[in-house]
């Protein structure tokens, strides 16, 4: 992510206390003095990496922190310690890996932040869809209105191709047409990512303002959250569509 807004807001690290082993140092995940792994403290993924809850983040710096922490926390490095320390090492490392995996991915990071903000995201995964279908529920698929016509058309074509394939035929023109639409959808996905980055900037601005002591109203926050939720839903919708198209084309 280029165009990083200057991050000055650095929150307090998660609950620090004296090292359980040497007692002298303040320690977060491991003790700066004796290197011992500390018991994991409950922390969200941003706090784990001592990051503010901003969305525009420097992935290279995150990776660097990840590797440095891995060298201290990993069970292989702590293999010769006692049972309790090994347990902490395992828990800390799984937290580290989970946090890194979530934060390095722009979509997962946004979803995670929204969840922290109390938003319950509509599950659009394939398994959720199939689950709903199999239990007789009608899955609420919010089709973005501007895509309605296009999607309708594409679904018809997909049906046609499926039917053709079943008969053992295929129509090169139809395949080409569907392939073209797939490309378009993929471009839309890319465009949505760029839009998302714009929304991040606004969100990060709110966080920065708050940090500077200026109040941010709940209404303002909600508006920004809703925009991101809306965008993620559109993106999920398109992603699922691309997946369906690929499936038909590849089979």
């Amino acid at each position, binding site marked *: 992510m280029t165009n990083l807004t200057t991050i000055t807001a650095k929150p307090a690290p998660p609950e620090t206390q004296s090292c359980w082993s040497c007692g002298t140092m303040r320690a977060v995940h491991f003790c700066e003095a004796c290197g011992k792994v500390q018991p994991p403290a409950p922390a969200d993924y941003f706090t784990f990496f001592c990051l503010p809850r901003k969305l525009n983040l420097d992935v290279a710096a995150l990776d660097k922190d990840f590797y440095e922490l891995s*060298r201290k926390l*990993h*069970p*292989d490095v702590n*293999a*010769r310690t006692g049972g309790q320390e090994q347990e902490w090492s395992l828990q800390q490392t*799984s937290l580290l890996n989970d946090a890194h995996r979530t934060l390095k991915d722009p979509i997962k990071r946004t979803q995670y932040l929204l969840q922290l903000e109390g938003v319950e995201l509509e599950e659009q995964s*394939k398994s959720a869809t199939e689950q709903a279908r199999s239990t007789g529920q009608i899955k609420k698929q919010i089709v973005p209105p501007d895509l309605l016509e296009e999607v309708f058309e594409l679904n018809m074509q997909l049906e046609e191709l499926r039917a053709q394939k079943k008969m053992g035929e295929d129509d090169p023109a139809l395949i080409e047409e569907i392939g073209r639409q797939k490309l378009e959808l993929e471009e839309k996905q890319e465009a949505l990512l760029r839009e998302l980055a714009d929304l991040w900037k606004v969100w990060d601005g709110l966080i920065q303002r708050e940090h500077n002591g200026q109040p941010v109203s709940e209404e303002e926050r909600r508006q920004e959250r809703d925009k991101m939720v809306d965008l993620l839903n559109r993106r999920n919708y398109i992603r699922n569509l691309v997946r369906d198209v690929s499936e038909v084309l590849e089979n």
Partner: protein
Amino acid sequence: MATDRIVGIDLGTTNSLVAFMQGESPVVIPGDDGSNLVPSVVALDSNNQPVVGNAARNSLIDAPEHAVYSIKRLMGRGVEDIQEELKFFPFRLAEDLQAGEVLRIKLGDKTFTPPEISALILRQLKRNAERFFGAQVTKAVITVPAYFNDAQRQATKDAGRIAGLEVLRLVNEPTAASLAYGLDKKQNGIVAVYDLGGGTFDISILKLHDGIFEVIATNGDTHLGGDDIDNLLITIALDDLKGDTGFDLRQNAEAIQVIRKAVIEAKITLSTEPQTALDLELPGHRYQRIITREWFEKLIQPIIDRTVGPCKQALKDAGLKPEQIDEVVLVGGSTRIPKVRALVKELFHREPHTDLNPDEVVALGAAVQANILGGGSEATENMLLLDVTPLSLGIEVAGGVTDKIILRNSTIPASSTQFYTTQVDGQANVAIHVLQGERELAKDCRSLARFDLKGIPPMAAGMARIEVKFLIDANGILNVSAREQRSGKEAEIQVQPSYGLTDEQVEGMILDSFDSAEEDFRQRQVIEARNEASTILSALDKGKKSPAWGHLTTDEKKKIAKMEKALIAIKTEDDYQAIRKAIDALNQGTTRLAELMMDSAVSTALKGKTMDEVDMGEGPTAPHPMAKAEFE
């Protein structure tokens, strides 16, 4: 005893090896027959005692119903999983097996589970290492195919425990290979490891940077390897024979083993020669056939093509194009086949590395990881392995659908927390079905276990909030814990592993019960030390008759005689450490004699060698060449 030695073990489908870090480089520990490879064959001898390796291999032909090979194919699997295997492998299952039960294999009139048979192989490797070190070995790193699922990993860990080994880590085979490879090269870049062994195929793509070996993606097939090629050739031979003679030898286990041995040799020959001939004396018929490489390559094409899909998927998961791979490393005996090498070259657009011994590199890498876990050395300083889970972990949700909670290629350890609630008032139990695999429907995924959360405090429906944490540890093995959040009560979890042994079962199988293990070990050590003493004493006798003896001073001769007497005296006693001490003393005392015995030109090169080594003509990696592995 010296510091705790941790060995690295490659428990292979066809061959197994044990290695350790000698100074700054890993070395394979040879068996008593001097061979680095221990064939993964277990047999019962005429006294119903288990024998392992080359000794057991002969039984495959003489007494096939008393021997078993390729047991790795059955690890962590149920009877319904292995129907395909049973068509091609002479596994004799116990007749009373129930569906869902851990498999039991008949050897003679006894039955063994696959982890028990693997444990016999591990015990042999353990003994080889103990003989080598002259000290007990209790800790090991064992490698598994990267694509092994939870049940297969658990079964391997159980085998270690049964063999009396504390398994400090299960390491994925291609990852281990990359450690051995990376130790040499010390460079950054993207490496693909293509590992086609006797029974399993793995592809792993790693990023090497500043000592960190980070797996980005892995894929594979745990039932694809050289075995499949052998079976194809056997089937053709059997069909030929039936056509020629009308004899169907399919039920003749001995004949099949004779054919198997011959086709394996032919396969190996074809890696270097354009053609080879099969010429076999079989009951009632002589079988002859010329096999050309061209015909062979056509035959195996469908088998080796099965590696293409996993390679492409791994590249896709890693988000890489073939051009972005800097190096391709070949692992596993089947990568010696020129056609396989050609395929790899085509897939990754580059010439694969062939300078490492594909049979040994995994064991060597396991030794490197063992060294890292033991605290590291100069060679392994800064080295850290970050591996991934090969398969997605999911739970079954309504409608028989898999809800994936940890995706494949997630760096491990990895965790996921799920919340459950009750559906009726006062419900005390919740059942969770854990799955592994990529398919959408639960029935198409591998069932790992069913968990029953018990003892949920009575509450209205939907009020309970049970937090269940799924954690995949650094071995790729799943751990589950659960807590009811409103009451804070730890929910009790009852696990029914789908195809595993319970803790109690493993306890009951441990090969040497703890009280006798120490004594067995001591006795073995005494016998081995005595053997070694005899070796050096007879070498000394020879030395005394050589002209070199005359060049020693009277004082030197006197000293040697004194040490010789001491060793002869102590040899009859039961203190193996004292015997070893006397051996060492005599070895040191005869260094000059050993040097003199050599040609003066050679003597400079051999400076510092001991009597023992000079006489035996053995390198420093095999200090006890005469000792036997098995003492029972």
